[in-house]
């Protein structure tokens, strides 16, 4: 079997609590040894000055295939994942048609295999056609490899259906990921409701729109003992509710996107549609609360919510632009710049939220560098200073709110199953 030695890097493996200068030996698709390695390998990667982390996992992306291949494909999304340092991503089912049956989940694996870059796992739709009426075949989807269930893009508005989803998915040990939003409160909103929506005259989406559904879902998760994962939390109230629920033992995890902790609703004063997403950029007080929740562990995972849009659709009046921004290729440097550099999170804490934590949410035996684990590894230069240039992105789309940001930290080499995938 082919062997690869990653020599002399700072090995950070939150799953085992390791943070030390060490060598990592890969043997075929598995990790063979971590520590001091003296034996010869077929290939040696010098990692001095670099961080050697488990392959990063982004558990919330939209890859648009099938249906909108002009915006992204599973192949281009895989390339963007590798460029961003991610060895594994989980893609949301809001494609056309939706991933709501066994065949469509298998199609995702097939296309990922053809791309042969990153591990791509489908998330199945909770309801058939994401229609919010009838449960999808959650059992068959699970058998086909779906790692979670979500109608992301939409909330499961019907509380009874949400209850049933939580109960039913329990049989397969799968999390239900809810996009928490009360559409009656969001209505025609296009940005956070607050001072800036008032001065700009743009319809607001109140924080309560998210919080009432988080509260409902927590109540249902408690009642059913199902497993809830709250997608893209964005408000102070949401993290307070989740913190409280975790303290009383509710089986809940949650995630935050880079744009929600790094940007505020003030960005919208530029009327640039690259600041339009759902949930919207929130107030400075919300951002502060998200950072506290990241630090105290209330927020388990950091994700991109990578949502590609064609320029002709996105580059229009703010009011008419679709929601969503891309982020796989900017996520890691934004985490370094906005969380690690200012001391909100340590390197091991940040890496945990992009490796072992999402792996645990999705029940994947990944996200660790322990012996015998999959040889998915991301090497990071923590000191690299660079400017985010969206024209260099591997994604097919360009709608990134971090374009032009001066950042620190960059993935240098990415290995999946022992193979170098970076060019």
């Amino acid at each position: 079997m082919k062997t690869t030695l990653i020599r002399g890097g700072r090995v950070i493996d939150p799953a085992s609590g390791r943070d030390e200068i060490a060598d990592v030996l890969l043997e075929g698709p598995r990790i063979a040894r971590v520590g001091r390695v003296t034996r010869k390998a077929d290939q040696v990667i010098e990692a001095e000055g670099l961080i050697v982390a488990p392959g990063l996992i982004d558990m919330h992306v939209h890859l648009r295939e099938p249906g909108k291949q002009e915006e992204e494909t599973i192949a281009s999304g895989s390339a963007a994942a590798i460029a961003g340092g991610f060895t594994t991503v989980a893609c949301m089912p809001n494609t056309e048609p939706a991933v709501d049956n066994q065949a469509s989940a298998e199609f995702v694996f097939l296309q990922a295999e053809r791309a042969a870059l990153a591990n791509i796992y489908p998330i199945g739709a909770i309801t058939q056609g994401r229609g919010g009426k009838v449960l999808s075949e959650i059992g068959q989807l699970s058998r086909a490899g779906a790692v979670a269930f979500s109608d992301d893009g939409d909330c499961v508005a019907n509380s009874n259906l949400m209850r049933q989803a939580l109960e039913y998915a329990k049989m397969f040990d799968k999390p239900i990921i809810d996009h928490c939003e009360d559409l009656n409160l969001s209505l025609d909103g296009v940005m956070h409701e607050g001072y800036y929506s008032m001065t700009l005259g743009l319809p607001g989406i109140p924080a309560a729109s998210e919080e009432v559904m988080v509260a409902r879902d927590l109540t249902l998760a408690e009642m059913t003992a199902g497993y809830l994962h709250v997608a893209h939390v964005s408000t102070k109230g949401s993290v307070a509710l989740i913190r409280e629920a975790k303290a009383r033992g509710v089986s809940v995890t949650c995630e935050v996107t880079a744009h929600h902790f790094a940007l505020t609703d003030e960005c919208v004063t530029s009327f640039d549609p690259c600041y339009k997403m759902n949930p919207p950029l929130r107030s400075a007080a919300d951002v502060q609360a998200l950072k506290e929740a990241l630090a105290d562990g209330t927020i388990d995972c950091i994700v991109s919510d990578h949502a590609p849009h064609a320029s002709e659709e996105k580059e229009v009046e703010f009011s008419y632009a679709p929601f969503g921004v891309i982020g796989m290729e900017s996520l890691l440097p934004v985490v370094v710049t906005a969380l690690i550099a200012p001391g909100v999170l340590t390197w091991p804490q940040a890496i945990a939220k992009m490796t072992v934590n999402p792996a645990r949410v999705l029940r994947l035996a990944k996200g660790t560098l322990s012996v015998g684990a999959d040889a998915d590894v991301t090497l990071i230069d923590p000191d690299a200073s660079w400017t985010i240039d969206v024209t260099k992105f591997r994604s097919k789309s360009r709608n990134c709110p971090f374009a032009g940001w001066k950042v620190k930290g960059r993935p240098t080499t990415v290995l999946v199953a022992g193979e170098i995938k970076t060019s």
Partner: protein
Amino acid sequence: MAKRAIAAAKEAPKPVWTRRHLLGLEELSSDELLAILDTAESFKEVSTRSIKKVPALQGKVVVLLFFEPSTRTATSFNLAAKRLSADVVSFSISASSVSKGETFNDTAKNIEAMGVDIVVVRHTAPGAALLLSRILEASVVNAGDGSHEHPTQGLLDIFTIREAKGHIAGLKVAIVGDILYSRVARSDIWGLKKLGAEVVVVGPATLIPPDIEKLGVEVSYDLDAVLPDVDVVNILRIQLERQGRSMFPSIREYAELFGINRERLARAKPDILVLHPGPMNRGVEITPEVADGSRSLILRQVTNGLAVRMAVLYLVSGGQPR
């Protein structure tokens, strides 16, 4: 000689007006606001002449790019541009043509390619004027962008108040009605506050946007309590249905709580000024006897709108304040 000229240029005070666009009143200084008002005053005189025309914009092309239906604002800009001797082209586009595929940017660039100096834009989307100013070489004047700003309406309101009262500082102005969706309210608030007026917004709680106190305005839900204290009341047009939401129970209840009628006005200061940006819903937010009464400046606002828009077109095309 040349040296002295350079030195003199260096010492010359920075001109008050240097903007190529008028996008909103939020970004203007009080000096800039006064420059527009003073210039408008000198242009108002033109309208009293038998030949109502000056050559200030001769050879320039003004396009009225209206993505939202408008009669009075479009007509006012049209006439203002013509009085400045500009060539005027009107371009009205219904929202439906947007769905036919051409983007706002493409439409604007196509029109500019015909050689345009000033684009006056009305649009349903907030920020549309700012967007245009970024992509076009031409000057851009915002004639209303969604619920964001309507700077020339704000200016003509302030011009009309100043003309009647002689000053703005120290006055108390009530803006009554749909504050949430009103671009007029926002432009009025920015302009009036910068010039030293006090502003109180009055309306149903469902139509008062959150955080508006941060603009330094007072909020009230009680028109009768406010009316005796104010020098000016600006009454906004009301709509029961706004973007699919019912904002208050009925027109009848609204008129009872917030409509301006003769009885209410009788408890106000005798020299109160009544403004309305139009078009009015007679019998809803304003009764006919108030609209046509002695305290009403509603038609004067329309007349002044012309002078204000002449001033704005003149200044954004490089003219210096008069």
